[in-house]
């Protein structure tokens, strides 16, 4: 198995690990970490597979996409953290309140 597929598989597992943690954890900070790990997994798949050109230089388009993705991820993380802090100030608990309406 070549390195390309090795890293791509690691990306797949990271995505799923993040998803698992997102479902299992109640604490919002952990959910935010989980989302970030999921994102890293997707980015790894995108870039690892870009190395399949058969030449020295990989395909640069996914690289640019991942840089975009990293900036989007940090933006979302900042917003989510602020939201978490405000919610904690309001409820005294860094978890989503159980929805009584559902």
């Amino acid at each position, binding site marked *: 198995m070549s390195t390309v597929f090795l890293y791509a598989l690691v990306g797949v597992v990271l995505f799923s690990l993040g998803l698992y943690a997102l479902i299992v954890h109640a604490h919002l900070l952990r959910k935010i970490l989980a989302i970030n790990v*999921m994102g890293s997994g997707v980015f790894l798949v995108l870039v690892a597979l870009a190395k399949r050109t058969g030449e020295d230089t990989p395909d640069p388009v996914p690289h640019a996409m991942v840089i975009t993705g990293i900036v989007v991820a940090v933006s979302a993380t900042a917003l*989510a953290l602020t939201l978490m802090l405000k*919610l904690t100030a309001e409820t005294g608990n860094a978890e989503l309140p159980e929805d009584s309406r559902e």
Partner: protein
Amino acid sequence: MGTVITKIPWGVLLILLPLMGGMACFLWPRIAKILGLVLTFVGVLSVVGLGWQIMSNGVYHHAVGGWGAPLGINLYADGLSLLMLAITALVGFGISVYSSGYFERQHSTRFWPLWLLVLAALNALFLSNDIFNLYVTLEVMGLAAVALAALTGSRDALSGAMRYLLANLLGSLSYLFGVALLYHGFGSVDITTLAVQVKGSPTTWAALGLIGAGLVLKTALFPLHFWLPPAHASAPAPVSALLSALVVKASFYILLRLWLEIFGPLGGDVDTLFGVLGAVAVLWGSLQALRQTRLKLLVAYSTVAQIGYLFLAFPLAMSAGVMAWNAAVYLALSHALAKAAMFLATGNMLRFGGHDRIADLDRVVQRLPLTATAFALAGVSIMGLPPSGGFIGKWLLLEVALAQGQWGLVVIIVLGGLLAAGYVFKVLGQAFTQAAVMHESRAVPASMEWAALLLAFGAILLGFLATPVLSLVGIGSPFGAHEVMP
């Protein structure tokens, strides 16, 4: 023909103007309100300009950067995109007029920049022909929508927004994974190129699953609707209108577009699954709406139900193609108008009485006649009574279901209408009675009442425009070239 007006690139302006407006509102908060109103009105004019161009020259293409696909990003607008842009401009203008009276000063400076950026993202989304670019527009729209949903800072708003944000991010990542697989499987992110390249393979199936799941989560189809009612019900009224009328439609539009261009021929079983989930959503959402004691939650659950209707078109389209898709588009358009009107009217009642408990609505009909009319007219369209846009949409759907002998779906469509009548009359019934306890009431600006009423009129008016609207959808034949228009 050939004048300056026909040469202006209206499609690009639809993206750039609100973008610049959003930034200007951020820089100079004092002029935010007036700038927002002017720009959303110019948005309506731009859509008219774009519509003119599309009707006279056919579909709109714009190769950003001059590169063209697959290297660059293409903008593309056919009849389907045009209608989505048009409904966005109309509802957007209504929301702007309403908001100019709704927000206090402090919230106003925060609302306008975010609102204009959401509008820019929506327009960019409906114009994009590139699945990675769609991801970026989804993120702009999603983050701004979350910030708007949390605007009041109340406990409910914050927890609703947090749930919404997590659902949004999960949906985006799932979508992005699908995009990654499509790119690496077929070497492009341009929808038109992919439409030619994509073949049934494990890659396509996985991409279909990931993209489908991500977008269904963002569109809040049952059982992935859990985030919608708290977020939509706890946001300020114009934001609720924006979220329910336009934002969920945006992810639905992407799903529809990708289905038509890329996944359609492959998705047999998925179509059926969508149909089943849609049917459950219609019943579950309507029943939940009927159970609610708070007006805004009732309207939010009604959105869950109405989204279900949109997905009923997928199994029907397998053999009825154009007719079923026309029905879905018509339902999406009329729901956008009606639900925006309904949320805005709800906002008026909430401001007037200071609460949204359905049982204590206290003779709204006498005190706020325009608002009560708006709610009733919007309700007519949601129920699907003639003459209204909702009626045409449901009629088209019913016709296809009958023709195919899909009796289950026929029952669902009719039952959903009856249940909708139940929850709409539950509200209207209270509007005539006097509440047991008197409340302090607060004046509602005329602009807010008229904005709701005109949008509701729009939903009714759509019932008379079936022929021109359906011929517009046909431009560029997004639903397949070989089939005849009804």
